[in-house]
């Protein structure tokens, strides 16, 4: 159970957003359109060949034994997933892609499988399998895989202190970089990381975060920490900034050329309940930014606590472009009791969503996310922004409530307007990519 809890919390860091209050005034008519009747508009034929495009859709559904993962190929963006036409990937999988090839990660096996899709029949076949099990990479870490080119890709397990470079064409390990993780084992919490790859500098930036599991002694980092991995030299550099303690799950790159990090849930929980949390600027709710080499900008910080009048709020990324970022903020405060610390998440409470301009600190209300419980997986395909949004459908029968998740792949226009494209019942869409 401990394992489940901890992995779960790690996943929380990757995904979170709940709907804002129905009581809030609605200054903006609902800009969300229902599932696109003609998703082909996003699926134009290849301008060079005139051939139909090929899309990959990965998603998961529930079963009595756990969440099962599937992927399917289609000529157009799907209006609805069709699990009978999909490749079953089993439990604990990740669906990735690069170029025309889907890749799937198997948590238990610690393997990455390379697939090909026939352009005519859309049939899948396995091209190769590479195992990372013996170099310390297995479990729920496949999401960190980053393809740099046809012949170069990386898969990190930062907490384990290892980054592996491999050749996706040959499906062979090229090199293994071991380094010392800068923090000792925590007795009361655990470390997790997020990452961003910067093509211009050929560097990975890994944000090191912490989440307390046991009350009431803080034993996390004393400053916000990043690791910068230079792929040119295979070296890892540790950088810290004292103006923040624990960061958010997302390192967000904006159009202004900076990478932003906002304070995380771990910082809010630590500050609220734990003893011996480092005092001073690091315990404040500051948004920081860094350049593409991972150098913190000493002249920038955005005090979220004064901006939003909240002790906790979280940023999420709806689309890769733009400088205005949505923040969710609870309408209630943290409970006084440690045992009730997650009550602000419980039972789909009412939340407020606001847009915060990183550059100016300006705040504006957003109602476009009303009714959704999460937004995740932002992507940009052929210059168009997309994201995955989800809602929970609740059927009330007498005193019985039965819920199920409905997930959508959505086109994001004009910053935040959503057009729902692909619908998946009973689980989250985990990947939509254009293969050709």
């Amino acid at each position, binding site marked *: *159970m*401990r*394992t489940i*809890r901890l*992995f779960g*919390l790690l996943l*929380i860091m990757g*995904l979170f957003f709940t709907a804002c209050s129905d009581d809030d005034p609605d200054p903006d008519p609902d800009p969300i359109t229902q599932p696109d009747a003609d998703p082909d508009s996003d699926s134009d034929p290849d301008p060079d060949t005139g051939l139909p495009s090929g899309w990959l859709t990965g998603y998961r559904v*529930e*079963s*009595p*034994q756990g969440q*099962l993962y*599937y992927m399917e190929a289609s000529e157009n963006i799907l209006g609805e997933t069709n*699990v*009978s036409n*999909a*490749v*079953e990937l*089993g*439990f*604990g999988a990740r669906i990735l892609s690069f170029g025309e090839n889907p890749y799937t990660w*198997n948590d*238990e*096996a*610690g*393997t990455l499988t390379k697939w090909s899709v026939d352009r005519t029949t859309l049939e*899948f076949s*396995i091209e190769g399998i*590479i*195992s990372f*099990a*013996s170099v*310390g990479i*297995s*479990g729920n870490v496949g999401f960190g895989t980053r393809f740099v080119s046809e012949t170069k890709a990386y898969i990190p397990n930062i907490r*384990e202190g290892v980054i592996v470079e*491999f050749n996706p064409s040959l*499906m*062979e*390990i090229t090199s293994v970089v071991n380094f010392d993780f800068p923090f000792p084992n925590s007795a009361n919490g*655990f470390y997790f990381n997020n990452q961003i790859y910067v093509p211009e500098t050929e560097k990975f930036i890994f944000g090191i975060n912490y989440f307390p599991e*046991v*009350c*009431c*002694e803080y034993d996390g980092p004393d400053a916000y920490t990043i690791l910068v991995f230079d792929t040119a030299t295979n070296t890892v550099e540790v950088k810290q900034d004292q103006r923040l303690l624990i960061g958010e799950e997302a390192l967000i790159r904006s159009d202004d050329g900076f990478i932003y990090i906002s304070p995380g849930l771990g910082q809010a929980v630590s500050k609220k309940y734990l003893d011996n949390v480092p005092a001073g600027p690091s315990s404040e709710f500051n948004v920081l930014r860094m350049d593409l080499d991972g150098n913190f900008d000493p002249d920038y910080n955005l005090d979220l606590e004064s901006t939003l009048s909240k002790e906790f709020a979280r940023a999420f990324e709806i689309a890769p472009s733009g400088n205005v970022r949505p923040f969710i903020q609870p309408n209630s405060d943290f409970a006084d009791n*440690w*045992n009730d610390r997650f009550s602000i998440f419980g039972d789909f409470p009412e939340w407020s969503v606001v847009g915060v301009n990183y550059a100016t600190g300006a705040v504006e209300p957003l109602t476009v996310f009303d009714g959704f*419980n*999460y937004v995740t997986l932002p992507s940009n395909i052929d210059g168009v922004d997309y994201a995955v949004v*989800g809602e929970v459908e609740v059927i009330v*029968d007498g005193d*019985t409530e*039965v*819920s*199920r998740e409905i997930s959508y792949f959505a086109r994001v226009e004009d910053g935040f307007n959503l057009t729902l494209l692909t619908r998946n*019942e*009973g*689980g*989250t869409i985990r990947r939509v990519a254009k293969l050709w």
Partner: protein
Amino acid sequence: MRGYAIIMFMFITSYPLLAQRTVKIEGRIMDGKGQPLPYANVLIESSGIGTVSEANGYYVLEQVPLGTTRVTVTVLGFQSETRTITVRRNTKGFDFRLEEGTEELEEVVVKGKSDTRKLRESAQAVTVVTTETVKLQTADLGDIMAKTEGVSVQRAGGLGSGARFALNGLSGDQIRFFYNGIPLDYSPYAFGLANVPVNAIERVEVYKGVVPIQFGADALGGAVNLVPPQTNKKLGGSVSYQTGSFGTHRATANLEHYNEGSGFFASLGGFYDYTDNNYKIDVAVPNELGQLEQFEVERFHDAYRAFGANFALGLRNKKWAKELSFEGYYGDYDNELQNSQAPGLIDAPQLGINNAVAGSPFGEVVFTSFSTGANLHYNVNPAPRWQIDLKTGYNYNERESFDVSNNLYNWFGEVVRVQNQPGEFGLADNLITKSENVFVRQQTTFEINERHTLNLSLSPTLGFRTADDLLIDGPFDPALDEGRLFDFVSGLEYRAELFKGKLENVAFVKNYRQGIRIESLDPSVDQVLVEERSVSNFGAGNGLRYAWSERFSTKLSYEFAYRLPRLDEIFGDGQLIQENLELRPENSHNVNLQWNYVNRETARVQWQVQGNFFLRRIDDLIFLVVDANDFGVFENVWSATSEGVEFSGRVANILGGLSLSGNVTYQEYRNTSDTGPFTQFRDDRIPNVPYFFANGAAEYGFEDLFKQEDGLSLFWNLRHVGAFFVGWESGGLQQFKAEVPDQTVHNAGITYRMDIGKVQNSITLEGHNLADAKVFDFFGVQRPGRAVFVKLTTQF
């Protein structure tokens, strides 16, 4: 707490003690040469008291009134004998020698029946598996149970491994296990049904969907009761020892004494199991480039050790008690774990990998557990037509998980990396869970007349649960939360025999009460938080048996049953799993329609066929609904229907000493959810559950092979399980779907028996999985290949 204690005390102390004027008589039934005759009917005509002789010809008649009476002994192929006997207080018993009959006997109305036969011929939906023969062989109880129609046992390895027992599709908490009528967890065999030593069991009763009230349990899909042997000998006992492949050693011993004069009895038993489980499996090991190569390797961290002991002291057949006994027990086990139940199977023949495990093995994960306790049993006829049976006990058990190693192993048992993060299974874990339980199982039976009986059953259980995470220093350990669980299942049963015993009907109602209280220390405010919940539900059922003739009978049974939510399902884990105080019990409408046909008892070739149609309509099934943020809550979100047929048959005494038996089960266990997360898979089979399985067996016996008191039997067993999908059947393209393939396993062996005086000795040589088939019960978890075992058994 105090109120519960008072209730239990009242149960224990409130029975009147009245005198009896009966004794027990015993003896042996033999042929003219002195060879024991099994299955002889022994009947006292005046009282209807009777029994059937055991394999060694031994019989016991309980509660025989003092005075002169007539005893009739009948057995197939022999002339019956009727003898007038005078039963006095000091009467011990009588032996009978029957002469072979040269003409077919007339059919005899058998009134005296063994417990097994009584159960089989009752209105209960029960299958009884006796261990008389199989206890001489080397299969473990999991394999034996898997040969039973309607039963599926999925094993995660060899001896000591985890097992999923399913009965007509339902499994896990939906099936309850008992040892002599009390929960199996409150016994020395608390480590799973499959690992209970066969020689410690006389028979296994499998109740299919309709569970008698005396078990006092929320058994949604049925119950399994393991019945230990009970001796009436002055001095009896048995010893067994088994050894063989994979470093396996299994031993049992028990010694029993009964003094008929004083009624005093005592028994002492114990068992010891050890296995390395180092059988070979196929694995895919990466080279330095990360490319997989397939190897066959021996498992290196899968050893299992268990031992236990129990004793009993008591008195029987006293004026004031049919039985008053006290027993104590202790059981202990250590179990190494080399992989999870989803070890990362890779099947890519084009890359040279054929169903091989690619995930890293565990080299140091260990689970340990012990269970200890004491039980008191009191049975009395306080007045004519009244009987009270009381069992009460205390149990304490601890389980510890130990997963703190930093070493990363490969499948050759080598450490390939010292990891930063301890923990092989997941994050480091060293958790001790502790449980204390006090229970009462009390039945009061009132015989309205010979044909009508009322039975009241009261079964309160009070349990305390807590834990200690040894990796957390200081007092603020979430595992230290204390849970208290009070289950009170009560039932009232009316049993009637009509039409001269042709029709038996059992109707019952049950009430399930559950009170849960959990206390957790909130360290942030240094305050104890208390949460409580209590519920009450009613269930009911009926069993009907009609004997259309001496040879053909049918049973129709029904129960509306419940499975009460567990503590963690209601209160969550205080982390990501939220509490749900509105969670309802799972419920099911269970129906069985059985028929049974036997040929004439006087025929030389004995055969029997039987069938069962079953239906389970299950609703409010509990499922952990996890949202995209990984916050979860247990909800009543799905429903299912399981329906199917079972056929079984056996024939004995053909071609001399040949016996054949077989059974087949086909079940449709399907999702019927109209709402909730499984809606789109409505009408699909429930994933990862076998739906077709069959068993066959043959045995040929030679008697008096080398001397008069020996015998040799050759036996062969076959088990086949049809392929089944791991995921939803309508999901996924067929060529990529994970599937547990067809499996067919052959076992065969030879047993030589030789009696020396009253001591019965046997030696068995047996081969398991003779074809060395690559067998999986769970996807990716390979089971042992070919193996050979030898077993020595002595009974006296």
